[in-house]
């Protein structure tokens, strides 16, 4: 049997195998589209799918789809999904043998992972040690560097304060000075001329002192207009590791991805092999178990450096599934059940192009601020190469309780041009009324010449604010909208209907 991409006829045999796995019921400790996504594969394997939900999610697709749904409570809705102890109690009571954490919430929480295993269940994810190592950005970076993989050249003042300036100079320009205690971009300074280095270090130090009460600094190579390229990996924790190609996620707003695609238009075959093998090597060096993603920062001249490793399923995993035919959740479940990957790198093949567009409840023209509202009408797009991963239903409601992502539109095409054309049509066909979404913005974005040319970087949307701006309405459009609204507003029709036809007709003659 082909364990990576089982055919329809091979699934019955796969279900038979799953019947002897150490778990026969899987609890999904998540919500929204990812809970639906995980439940589909769990149920397809013939396993029982259980989901937990907060009252705010009662009417959602995951709760309807699950074989069993158990309500959990918390001070806030998010708090309920972060309450590991409660979720473990529910899982045990429901007879779950394994917990799938999805992404976000408890997915990269070492303590939760340990508690699940201590309770005698399988955690569908990596080992606690792997979560711990990759969760600490500095430790992860140092580990990856020691293992011989590329990290951005840097100098940490704490390592030896006396030589900090000299070591920073060796990092080379352009470089970025950051407060060690910092975050959110505060106190960061870009140095392009090394003769200004000492002066800039002093300024950075005084800013760090002012913002964080801590003047310690570190320097790293600054990548101008970087791209975000990440590599999907799969490991079985028993020596088996493969990569499942890259995804490019350079189109971002507020450091959050909006559009992801694979293959990356920035890579040629040689560079693709190099970056994918680097990711597989990093996963191999820690004996990685589970699906994971190694993220890189990719410079305009082709240099790339390790950024971080996410030890979970990623929001944008579907594009990888679309070009390879691999069900990544199936692979997570197999590995958690103790199976070996049972394949080599050569078994992983890709074909075509896939793009994911995140449908957010937000107003791009108002600084991408979130919107809320009822979902009065929802017609998901259909057609060849169109996949709609969503947790919301017609009649549901978008609230400010959770992340504003409503759905993911995933498009597959024979090549990038076909995928973009299909994406535009699918966005146009997406009808969602009651809550403002970013679909019109996404259409402007994928029609932009730079996007079509594949020439984007993580600062692309900041550099092109006109894409987010609300375009001026054409007169014809405005007329149609006012006509539709007028005819749909009861008080207006009532007033108009109160005047007899004949009188109305005469009225217009008099004018």
């Amino acid at each position, binding site marked *: 049997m082909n364990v990576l991409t089982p055919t329809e006829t091979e699934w019955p045999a796969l279900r038979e195998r799953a019947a002897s796995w150490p778990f026969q019921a899987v609890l999904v400790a998540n919500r929204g589209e990812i809970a639906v996504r995980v439940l589909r594969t769990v149920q397809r394997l013939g396993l029982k799918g259980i989901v937990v939900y907060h009252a705010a999610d009662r009417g959602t697709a995951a709760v309807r789809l699950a074989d069993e749904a158990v309500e959990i409570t918390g001070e806030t809705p998010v708090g309920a999904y972060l309450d590991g102890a409660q979720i473990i109690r529910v899982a045990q009571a429901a007879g779950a043998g394994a917990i799938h954490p999805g992404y976000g919430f408890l997915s990269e929480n070492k303590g939760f992972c340990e508690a699940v295993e201590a309770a005698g269940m399988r955690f569908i994810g990596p080992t606690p040690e792997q979560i711990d190592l990759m969760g600490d950005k500095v430790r992860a970076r140092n580990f990856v560097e020691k293992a011989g993989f590329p990290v951005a050249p840097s100098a940490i003042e704490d390592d030896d304060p006396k030589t900090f300036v000299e070591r920073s100079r060796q990092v080379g320009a352009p470089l970025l000075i950051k407060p060690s205690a910092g975050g959110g971009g505060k106190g960061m300074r870009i140095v392009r001329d090394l003769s200004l280095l000492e002066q800039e270090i002093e300024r950075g130090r005084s800013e760090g002192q002012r913002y964080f009460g801590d003047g310690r600094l570190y320097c790293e190579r600054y990548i101008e207009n970087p791209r975000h390229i990440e590599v999907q990996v799969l490991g079985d924790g028993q020596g088996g590791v493969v990569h499942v190609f890259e995804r490019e996620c350079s189109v971002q707003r*507020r450091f959050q991805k909006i559009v992801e695609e694979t293959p990356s238009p920035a890579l040629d075959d040689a560079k693709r092999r190099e970056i994918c093998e680097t990711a597989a090597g990093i996963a191999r060096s820690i004996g990685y178990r589970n699906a994971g993603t190694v993220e890189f920062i990719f410079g305009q001249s082709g240099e790339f450096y390790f950024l971080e490793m996410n030890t979970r399923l990623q929001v944008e995993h579907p594009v990888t599934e679309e070009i390879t035919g691999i069900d990544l959740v199936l692979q997570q479940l197999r590995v958690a059940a103790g199976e070996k990957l049972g394949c080599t790198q050569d078994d992983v093949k890709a074909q075509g192009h896939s793009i994911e567009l995140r449908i957010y409840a937000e107003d791009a023209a*108002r600084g991408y*601020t*979130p*919107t*809320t*509202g*009822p979902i*009065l*009408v929802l*017609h998901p797009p259909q057609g060849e190469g169109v996949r709609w991963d969503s947790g919301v239903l017609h009649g549901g409601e978008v*609230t*400010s*309780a959770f992340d504003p992502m409503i759905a993911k539109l995933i498009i597959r095409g024979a090549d990038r041009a076909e995928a973009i054309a299909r994406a535009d049509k699918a*966005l*146009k*066909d997406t*009808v*969602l*009324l*009651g809550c*403002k*979404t970013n*679909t*019109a913005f996404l*259409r402007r974005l994928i029609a932009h010449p730079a996007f079509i040319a594949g020439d984007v970087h993580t600062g692309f949307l900041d550099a092109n604010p006109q894409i987010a701006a*609300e375009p001026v*309405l054409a007169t*014809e*459009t*405005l*007329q*149609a*909208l*006012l*006509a*539709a*609204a*007028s*005819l*749909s*507003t009861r*008080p*207006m*029709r009532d*007033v*108009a*209907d109160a*005047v*007899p*036809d004949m009188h*109305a*007709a005469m*009225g*217009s003659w008099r*004018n």
Partner: protein
Amino acid sequence: MHHAFKLGDDVHNVELSRSATAYRLHLGEQRIDIDLRTGADGRAWLTLGERHVEVVIATRGDEVFVHLDGEAYALRYQHPLDRLAAAAGGNAEDRILAPMPGSIVSVAVKAGDAVSKGQTLLVMESMKMETTIAAPRDGVIAEVTYEMGQTFDRDALLIALEAQK
């Protein structure tokens, strides 16, 4: 009779009357014969003069949502009385509305407090960012609508100031 819809930040005045066969839309000096026929699954055909366009329409209260040519729009019907009050009173500054949905982190004032322009009234949280809401003018707090921890939608009334004499 005059009606109005708010679309984005703009208010558009309209009038509607019967025509011999359906309705007539009045926009300024323009008169356009219009009609709307709804089919199955909520899709509808809108006629404007010689033009026919497919639309999907949903309403909730005073809001009308329209999907037209691949894009969704929201229009809000402006009640004549509200418009009258707004025109007469010009009291927009008395009502501090939420700039985006979120939750209350802290409230610094209570009804009856005298505040000066720029003074912090409350701190809200949205998108994991805190935003401070400050007094738009000197005045007295008439009402504080939400308590710490409560959530609200965009344009919810957060704080009202006593009207100025």
